[in-house]
């Protein structure tokens, strides 16, 4: 047994800790039982890791993400990030929503700068960084455009820039590419991996796509249907940087199969 005190290697300590995290919503009508959305999840992840939360709709994975983000309170258990309990949204968290959620009356640049403006840090350096990020996602020419002039994929890139502009240590993403077409989605996945390679940001990524979960992640948490509980933890063990061809490799397919079996969509492969 290690003592968590002096002499311990800090980098080996988990970055995020989920300890017995559960969420129960009160019954919608009198007499009905309370709804257990999330059933006691215990998990930890390290700095720089990309973790996918994979599960069917309504399995509580988004609820779990919001609890980690401090945007929803857990009914039980606790979440710690970098040794501090999360009780509300943090300055160094970035959140990317399912919808781009851009403010239509602001330009693309002003949307990216929104978190800085709220934090009172909307200075020249922030603007510089926002423009660099827009350049990184290929939207430098659209800084002065309005959201309605952009396609869905472009909007979600802007949303990604907005989440990244404060330089978050933890990026939380709630099915951010779910509404995009297949090709755009694959581009966005590679873009996210590029950004993570450059920034070293830790990422928790919610998705209901098996291949997306595996393609992105160091580790995939597979959730059961409601009440959501972790039924499998898959360490992908795939090397970064990842190439699109990876999707057609046997090890990728095997991982997909394992995740699919966990979700109950395919039968488990018999051990041979």
């Amino acid at each position, binding site marked *: 047994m290690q003592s968590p005190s002096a002499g311990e290697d800090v980098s080996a300590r988990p970055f995020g800790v989920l300890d017995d995290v559960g969420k129960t919503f009160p019954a919608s009508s009198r007499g009905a039982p309370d709804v257990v959305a999330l059933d006691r999840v215990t998990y930890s992840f390290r700095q720089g890791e990309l973790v996918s939360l994979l599960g069917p709709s309504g399995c509580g994975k988004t609820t779990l993400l919001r609890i980690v983000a401090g*945007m929803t309170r857990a009914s039980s258990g606790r979440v710690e990030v970098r040794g501090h309990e999360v009780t509300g949204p943090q300055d160094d968290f970035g959140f990317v*929503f399912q919808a781009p*959620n851009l403010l239509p009356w602001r330009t693309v640049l002003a949307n990216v700068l929104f978190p800085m403006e709220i934090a009172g840090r909307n200075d020249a350096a922030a603007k510089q960084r926002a423009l660099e990020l827009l350049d990184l996602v290929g939207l430098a020419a659209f800084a002065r455009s*309005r959201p*309605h002039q952009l396609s869905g994929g472009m909007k979600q890139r802007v949303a990604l820039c907005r989440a990244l502009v404060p330089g978050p240590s933890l990026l939380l993403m709630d099915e951010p590419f779910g509404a995009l077409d297949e090709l755009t989605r694959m581009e966005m996945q590679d873009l996210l991996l590029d950004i993570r390679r450059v920034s070293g940001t830790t990422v928790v990524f919610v998705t209901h796509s098996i291949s997306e979960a595996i393609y992105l992640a160091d580790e995939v948490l597979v959730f059961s249907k409601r009440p959501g509980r972790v039924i499998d933890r898959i360490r992908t063990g795939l090397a970064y940087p990842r190439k699109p061809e990876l999707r057609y490799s046997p090890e990728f397919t095997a991982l997909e199969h394992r995740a699919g079996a966990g979700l109950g969509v395919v039968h488990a492969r018999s051990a041979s």
Partner: protein
Amino acid sequence: MSDSRIARVLLPAAGLALLILLWHFYVVTFDVAPAVLPRPTLVLDATIANWRLIVSEGWITLLESLYGFILAFVLGVPLAVAIAGSRTLNLMFYPLLIATQSLPKVALAPLILVWLGTGIESKLAIAWLVAFFPIVVDTATGLRNTPAEFLDLATSVRANAFQTFWKIRFPAALPFVISGSKVAITLAVIGAVIGEFIGSNEGLGNLLLVANSQVNIPLAFACLIGLSAIGIGLYAAVAAVELALKPWFGTTGH
């Protein structure tokens, strides 16, 4: 595409022309007395002959309507902000506000005349009264119906209540403010005319009454043309503001 654009101008014009033609042939065929329904050409003659009078009286009605609307806007928007921002104020006043919606404001006009006299004040007050409610109610509705995902964004970046209000809820409500204003500006003209009907010695409403009492029906019609010009003009002004703001709001919130 340009086809439909031309059609959007030409077809309403054709509709209007058709109505005027029907009017003309009805009067000619049934030999209707000019004191009951004058021919369109008579109305046109009366309008041209009295155009200075119509413009000068119309100007008064226009100002009454416009000032009434501006007053309604200036008082209505802050009240809506207060109502939407405070649960207490909301509970105190919102039901009252909805209840007063059902009161025919015209019924208050005689009282207002007693309180404020026959000058511009009473017309302004009546115009204000009818324009006030749509602005307050629509603005408050807009402020309460901020898309939930925008509020989620505010939470995620730790915006305080003040920032959430001014940077998200208020701008998100602007389309509602405009749509309330479109209703309000039209009502303000009606309010001003009612005020003139009840007690006044100026304005197009007054001229209309005078023309009526002299059985000068072509002049009465000319007044109506003047009034609709005012209504359409003011409405178009608000619609122009809306159009100018369009790029700021795009198609939807997403």
